[in-house]
């Protein structure tokens, strides 16, 4: 049987890749995709902990459902913001939308 640590390391790899993507990318939609990667890593962690450690076995799955719900709301809202940004500035790169930068 696959031990718990394998799932934890896999989810750590996914999360670190997401952090790299969020920090390195310029395009707002690509940053959003990296955020999705991180959210998925967190859900995987929740479910793995629930299956191996939790006597009830279901709390982590319910947390993952809530993560998916909030992620769906976040994607919808963030893409609306990106589309609005593109319409106003003709760019979706976050380093060019720097009006508030001192």
């Amino acid at each position, binding site marked *: 049987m696959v031990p718990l640590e394998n799932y934890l390391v896999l989810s750590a*790899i996914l999360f670190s890749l997401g952090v790299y993507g969020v920090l390195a990318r310029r395009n707002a939609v690509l940053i959003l995709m*990296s955020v999705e990667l991180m959210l998925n890593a967190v859900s995987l962690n929740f479910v793995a902990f629930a299956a191996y450690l939790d006597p009830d*076995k279901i709390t982590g799955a319910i947390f*993952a459902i809530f993560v998916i719900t909030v992620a769906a709301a976040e994607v919808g809202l963030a*893409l609306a913001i990106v589309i609005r940004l593109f319409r106003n500035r003709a760019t*979706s790169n976050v380093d060019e939308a720097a009006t508030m930068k001192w």
Partner: protein
Amino acid sequence: MATEVLWWIFASAIVAVSVGVVTARTVIHSAIFLILSLCGVGAMYIFLTVEFLALVQFLIYGGAVTVLILLALMLTRGGGTVTEKLNGPQAPFAAAAGVALLLILTTVAIDTAWPGDTDDLPDMITVTPISEGLFMDFGAPFVIASVVLLVALVGAIILARQEDD
């Protein structure tokens, strides 16, 4: 034994396509790698015996979210051939931060003795206990989550609406 071999195949595939998500040269390739990565995580839920969650993952992430992302990519691309750089000049520092975080997380995950770790999985987590937990113990968060979804979608419509026609 066969499960373990399958697990390693899926795990390496997930890592490979996730590397593809953050290193792909074009945004569309990145999005397609993201679809594969999300479906791979859904397969991991099947390994963890939570089949309902795997179904939700395939439907919502593999279907709805990626379609939204692809749509936004197509709406926000400047016309014609776009060959601008996808990474900023800070990319090496971002890589250093990612590697440092990976080292810390893996060290913690491996070195910690998890209390109650039995190294075996339940036979199957069916949808009945999940629905009982969702509607009984977690009833209030469920209602709040529905309100959050409603508000977010109304806000998205208001933000993306064409104005001054």
